[in-house]
């Protein structure tokens, strides 16, 4: 009896032990606990000094199923206590949106990987990055989380989507990539009242809070009483998927890609649908207006290319890496109006390009200089009913922008103490004397304990994209424990 029991036990436990061993051999995991503190150096934007006390838990599991197949699962959760411990109404109102992980965004990656010599397939929730520049030009496949403007790492800003990514290499160093993205997520922006909410959103929110507004007096007093905005998402049908193709190859050591993307914009655009006037008799009689609007996502097409080349032959250019990219966007919705006031939403073609030069300038120090231009095909529009000429507007501020908007980005990176201390500075300068300067330093305290301290300075006119955050200068600190 004892023997039978023993054998039964062995037969039950042994497979489990073997399974556990296999699991140990084939599973790889890593993660971190991170605390971020953000302190603003002024309070004149209705916020107190503490604008962030964010705690993040992140873990990734890579399970190797066989030589060619693997599965990756990567959740992440955060909670920002700053939204709980503060008392200001403006700030607390955004807690439900900014204070914790939203909906399904806790799942950063969840995909099945098949890798072979000529064919790679990745099925599931993932992110894809195109292009070579630090400022996204071709990197338009994924929606972005702009709730902290461009301060986080790009990998954390991209919002992952469920998709199929297929990379086929007919020959060495030449790859054809196909993307089929049935999933849709809109880019996230900070709600009105949050530190990095767009001024256009804040102004619109303030307008809705001050209703009714007297908008006319002839023949009767006319009040704008209601503003309705209905956001219309693309319906969940396969034909509404985003499709992308990228061909990458090399000519000598010149690396290039040709890109095509067809899908919905990741940002929604405001359209007026109708205005209903209601005559209200009484003393005194007046008219009440209700404005019906929609926010819509529109189908656009992007075609582009990118290249990168390091000069490896001896000579003046040796050691320089040259990178560039170009994107033509067909029929992208664009706002037109006067400064601070959007009047029309019309489509226009966009031509965006950038070029970057990178070189090791002195010992262990790399300098990267980038020139970027965003060009809008039609920078003026005539209102068909009034004949008024409207200019193209910045989407986030409704400030008037030029037909050609130029940016220069400079990044300097180095390290000290055997790479324990890594300082870097990013300077973005845009036309009309606006931009941001972000110095940062990362310190490795232990193998598994890292400290990062930085400062973000924004400058420019209040209606410019960076200048709108000129009261948001802040000290950023981050402690990260990894495992």
């Amino acid at each position: 009896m004892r023997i039978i029991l023993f054998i039964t036990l062995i037969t039950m436990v042994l497979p489990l032990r073997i399974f556990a061993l296999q699991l140990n051999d084939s599973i790889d995991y890593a993660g971190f606990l991170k605390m971020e503190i953000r302190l603003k150096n002024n309070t004149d934007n209705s916020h107190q000094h503490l604008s962030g006390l964010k705690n993040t838990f992140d873990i990734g599991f890579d399970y190797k199923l066989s030589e060619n197949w693997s599965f990756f699962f990567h959740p992440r959760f955060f909670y920002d206590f700053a939204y709980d411990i503060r008392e200001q109404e403006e700030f607390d109102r955004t807690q439900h949106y900014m204070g914790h992980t939203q909906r399904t965004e806790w799942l950063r990656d969840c995909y099945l990987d098949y890798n072979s010599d000529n064919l790679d397939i990745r099925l599931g929730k993932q992110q894809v990055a195109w292009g070579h520049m630090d400022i996204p030009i071709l990197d338009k496949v994924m929606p972005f989380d702009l709730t902290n403007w461009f301060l986080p790492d790009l990998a954390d800003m991209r919002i992952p989507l469920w998709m199929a990514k297929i990379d086929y290499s007919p020959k060495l160093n030449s790859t054809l990539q196909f993307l089929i993205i049935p999933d849709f997520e809109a880019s996230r922006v900070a709600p009105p009242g949050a530190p990095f909410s767009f001024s256009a959103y804040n102004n619109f929110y303030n307008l809705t809070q001050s209703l009714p507004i007297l908008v006319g007096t002839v023949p009767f007093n006319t009040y704008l009483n209601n503003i309705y905005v209905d956001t219309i998402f693309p319906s969940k049908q396969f034909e509404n998927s985003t499709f992308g193709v990228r061909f990458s190859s090399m000519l000598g050591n010149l690396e290039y890609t040709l890109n095509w993307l067809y899908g919905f914009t990741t940002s929604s655009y405001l359209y007026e649908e109708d205005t209903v006037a209601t005559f209200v008799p009484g003393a005194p009689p007046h008219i009440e207006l209700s404005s019906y609007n929609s926010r819509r996502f529109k189908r656009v097409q992007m075609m582009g290319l990118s290249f990168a080349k390091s000069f490896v032959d001896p000579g003046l250019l040796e050691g320089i890496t040259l990178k560039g990219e170009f994107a033509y966007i067909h029929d992208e919705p664009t706002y037109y109006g006067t400064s601070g006031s959007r009047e029309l939403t019309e489509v226009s073609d966009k031509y965006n390009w950038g070029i970057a030069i990178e070189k090791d300038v002195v010992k262990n120090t790399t300098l990267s200089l980038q020139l970027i231009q965003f060009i809008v095909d039609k920078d003026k529009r005539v209102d068909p009913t009034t004949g008024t000429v409207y200019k193209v507007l910045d989407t986030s501020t409704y400030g008037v922008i030029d037909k050609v908007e130029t940016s220069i980005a400079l990044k300097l990176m180095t390290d000290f103490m055997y790479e324990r201390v890594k300082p870097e500075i990013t300077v973005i300068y845009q036309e009309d004397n606006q931009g941001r300067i972000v110095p940062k330093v990362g310190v490795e305290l232990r193998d598994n304990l890292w400290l990062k301290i930085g400062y973000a300075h924004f400058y420019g006119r209040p209606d410019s994209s960076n200048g709108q955050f000129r009261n948001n200068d802040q000290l950023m600190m981050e402690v990260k424990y990894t495992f």
Partner: protein
Amino acid sequence: MRKMLFLFAILSLCGKVLAGELEYYKLYTPQDGMSAEEIMQIKYHNKYSLFAKDYYLPYCEVYYVDASGFTRKKIAKRFRIVKGGEDGISYKDLVVITYPTEIKGLAILTWTYEDPNKSQDVWLWVPSLKKVRKISASEDDDAFMGSDLTVEEVSTRKFEDESYRLIGEENFKGYKFEHTAEIKFEGEPCFVIECVPKQLHWYYAKRIIWVTKSTGGNIFEEYYDKNGKLFKTIFRDWAIYERGIKNYPTQHAVECKDLRTGHRTTVLNLEQEYDKGISEQEFTVKALMRSKW
């Protein structure tokens, strides 16, 4: 007797360097009577494992130890494929960091050209961007991954970069490997060679190296500044990795000491393999994009 002599002569020739460049995928061992240049050609041939079609290092531990004993650690994997001059490329190399977690997944792909005047082509998979970046090759005297070793000491120094003088032959005095406190290579027969960089105002004025007769590996190097002061030493634990009919000269460990700061870097290369048949597709930008971290 004549037949034996003939056979002996043939076998000796196989081990010797023939005039001109060494051939890829062949093993060479230094012999008595060779010039400093011939010995150094073999040393470089072995350093970049040009005797094998490919090289796989699944587990490489790097320890950074400062004068107070404070220690940091990195773990990496390394792959190399020897192209043998095809398309002008000598070899392609891929290093993937697996520890610490903060930089887990960081991968560096380098293509090294046969032309000694050409710089390397370098790509980087940056986990914080989830993107491949084409980057400029580091300067040869930059620190390699924050270690005491420079980039050229690990991956870019070539035979043509220095001039050589054979100082003599001696039995090595032995090296105390700090990581384990073992005495290594005591009494090992070596060639002693002086190497002077051709580049003016370089970070060292000369180095003296000890190359073992058994492996053709440089087990010890002393670096001197322009004042003739010794400022750095590098120890390399070379051994023969026997695999069937082919004996691969292999570096099992490296220890570099900066005598000015008291800092040292120890590299342990574990479970190395050669001629595994690694596909060249592993050394492409597409392969870098497979990274999950």
